């Protein structure tokens, strides 16, 4: 889907200047989640929380029609009995609830893009299933989109906050984290959403955000839009990451510089992987070299570096580091 509507011309404000909140009636909302081997308990809590937050937003007039779309990348359908979709609050809050078992692991980028396919609401809330929305999450996020120049707004993650910097007064930030953000549907249609051809799990949100910024929108961090993201810490206080997360984060460290006109950084990172002595990293490097050899590199964007930021190994200034 990515690239279908790519518009890389920077704009002063949002592309259309449309403000869903200022149109007749409150904006319609789609909440979407992509599942992958999540526990029933985690999904149940997540659904209860987002139903609660959506219901409160509807009662306060922050959103109007609301739908819930769930995609499932797990080998077997997780919600086979669909009992939790019939939770009284979930049923009462959403005008429509859909569940699709993809039959394949599409990753977060592919799964969300599949769900974007029939997006007809004004706003779309992308949420990880290992989250728990605070009751005012939807109200807070939609409040940010009252400003038509803002295309995407992300929530504040607790207990382990993302270290990415943001403007303390305005909230502007380099990119929106895919664990929880609210985007205008127009951002999805203009950018084409995520790019599943390039990204599977990590970096997809950075890429989506940067293309939205290239299209003229601002990205906002809203600290009062709280969401619990179930991250754990090691006994050293370091963030626990899975092998898959490590792998796709490493890939993103090459793919993003490739796409955003920094081949020097991509080459430096690739060489570092190759020389690391770490078998998984070397395997990733071989795969990327093969893509390079086959000419499968993405078309470079942002040649002047107007939106893409590469600060040390990060894609924005960080307030603090999770590494010593």
């Amino acid at each position, binding site marked *: 889907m990515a690239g279908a509507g790519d518009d890389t011309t920077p704009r002063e404000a949002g592309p259309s200047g449309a403000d869903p909140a200022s149109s007749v009636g409150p904006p319609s909302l789609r909440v979407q989640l992509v599942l992958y081997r999540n*526990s029933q*308990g*985690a999904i149940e*809590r997540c659904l*209860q*929380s987002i*139903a*609660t937050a959506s219901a*409160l937003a509807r009662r306060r007039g922050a959103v109007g029609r609301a739908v819930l779309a769930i995609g499932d990348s797990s080998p077997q359908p997780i919600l086979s009995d669909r009992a939790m979709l019939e939770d009284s*609050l979930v049923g009462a809050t959403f005008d429509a609830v859909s569940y699709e078992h993809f039959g394949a692991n599409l990753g977060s980028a592919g799964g969300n893009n599949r769900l974007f396919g029939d997006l007809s609401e004004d706003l779309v809330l992308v949420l990880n299933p290992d*989250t*728990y929305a*605070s*009751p*005012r999450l939807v109200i807070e996020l939609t409040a940010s989109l009252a400003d038509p120049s803002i295309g995407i707004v992300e929530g*504040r993650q*607790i*207990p*382990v*906050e993302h*270290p990415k910097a943001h403007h*303390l007064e305005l909230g502007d930030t380099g990119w929106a984290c895919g664990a929880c953000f609210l985007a205008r549907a127009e951002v999805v249609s203009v950018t084409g959403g995520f790019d599943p051809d390039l990204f599977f799990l990590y970096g997809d949100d950075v890429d989506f955000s940067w293309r939205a910024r290239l299209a003229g929108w601002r990205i906002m961090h809203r*600290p*009062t839009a*709280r969401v*619990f993201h*179930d*991250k*754990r*810490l*090691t*006994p*050293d*206080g370091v963030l626990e990451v899975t092998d898959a997360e490590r792998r796709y984060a490493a890939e993103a460290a090459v793919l993003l510089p490739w796409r955003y006109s920094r081949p020097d950084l991509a080459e430096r990172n690739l060489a570092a992987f190759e020389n690391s002595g770490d078998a998984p990293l070397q395997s990733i490097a071989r795969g990327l070299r093969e893509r390079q050899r086959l000419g499968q590199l993405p078309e470079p964007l942002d040649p002047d570096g107007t939106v893409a930021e590469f600060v040390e190994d990060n894609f924005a200034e960080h*307030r*603090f*580091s*999770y590494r010593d």
Partner: protein
Amino acid sequence: MTEDPLRYHFAFGEGTPYAHAMALVSEHVAVSGGVVVDLGCGFGAVAEPVRELGLEYLGVDSEAAGIKDLVGRGMEVLVGDLARPEELFVEVAGCLGGRPVAAILMLDSLEHLPNADEVLGVLHRFACEQGRAPLVVSIPNVTHVDLGIKLLLGRFDMTPTGLLDRTHVRFFSDLGLDEAMGAAGWFEIARKDFELSQSDQHFPVGTVALEAASSLGQFLREVRASASPSAFVNQFVRAYLPGPSPTLRTLPAVPEQGPFLSVLVRTQGKRPHTFVETLLSLAAQDCADFEVLVLCHDVNAFERARIEETIGEFHPAFSGRVRVVEVCGGGRSRPLNVGAVEAAGRYLAVLDDDDVALGNWVGELRGLAERHPGMVVRIGVAEQWVKELPGAWDSEAGYEPVDRPRCPYPMSFDLLEHLQENQTPPSGFAVPRSLVTDLGQGWDESLPVYEDWDLLMRAASVCGIADAPVVGALYRRWRVGESSKTAHADHEWLAAKASVVSKLDRAPYLLGRGFVTQLRLAANERSDLENRLAGTEALAAVLNTLLGEARAQVADLRGSTSWRLTAPFRRAGRLLAIARRRRHPTAQSRQAAT
């Protein structure tokens, strides 16, 4: 076995349970000049004191010896048997002949009655008919510390009189007495319990566990005394009035099964932006076997409403497990003690309104408690420095992290290290609720700070500590803003620490398995360090001596005639050396010059 009836011929006197009972009679007598009915009067030890109060005395008993003695002292008596209370009270009413009842006494008699509950019920009706006369009882306490310790030793010594009188058929604890009296419709109005630090059961003399001077004796007495106020009560001496109807306050045979954990969340309503995050982190727990008590400490109506609104916005699956408890007065400990009383969980944990739990917090604590029931359970806590941002309720961020979470607190509990300094934040452990409710080990309200450390150290003694090297919570440290670290002066921290240590010293401290080895290792390390220090000091002394000798020799040399005579030659030599260096600078000095 025939018992000697004279064994109950006790005299009235100051410092006896009879004097305590008479004090209650004089304070709560229903009518002046009325009759005091002494049920199961025996030899009527209080008959004369009753008359001295200007009241009439009527002794009721079935034992001839006592009745005969009372008659001989000119007292009015009625021979009657409490085994048939309905008939007896008809006879008592007849005997009274319309005279008002000033009080009813049952001194050391209820425990002899197999039908005690029936007697109390009929007596309630009788008292109501007689102008709601008060009832004063004296009842032996079967939970006196001496009896408890002897049971531990496998001893249950029945005696002719006393706490374990052979003719006792009912045994009363404080709670049991409350239950029996309440069930019969009697409401307590006053108490003057009679205490003995050593009861008649304090034998054999020299029994290690019984003696207060022995470590074991001290420890057991401390445990019993902390558990409830009746440890040294020999007889419950209490006054009651008949209520309008009996209340069925029976204790449940099997206590209700509460959740695993009661989470105590202290809030003063000042941090709404972090309070909502505390709740959010609890709502998101992967184990839901807990309840939350939000302890609103000295909050105003506006803050209280705001807190309730915040809770009410959550999904009922969570908000239905949250209770709001208002707490007034006291320091940081007060809300926790109030919460412990209200709690239904088997364990208690504290999560303050600026702490957040990781998703595994409750689950990890529960897992440990299941594997180590009765022990304190402890997990790791990360701390994160944050800076405060000025903000109003839910309209601003409130704070900003300035560093990543770090884990400065040890993952495993080390008693020796903890005796020096607290190394466990409040959210890092949960204690069995029984520690508070059964053993009276609550949070010390006299401490302005360190109340968590104080409880942890006392709990470590009686419960032991089971820990797991996992991080379960995040403890925020405020760079600017109020936390207990900044709200209290240094001297308060020092004084509180001294108080905690002093309390631990006051009673024997129970050490867990393996501690002896730990202590030996620490002692060995100290020994090694002392030896090394002694060696270093000896060497320093030798060097000092040598230095002193060398200085003396130099002084001698400088004071000699030959040294003074050769002084001009040495001066000339030094000038010559300087002149040479100027002509031929060394490589080092050239480099330094550039």
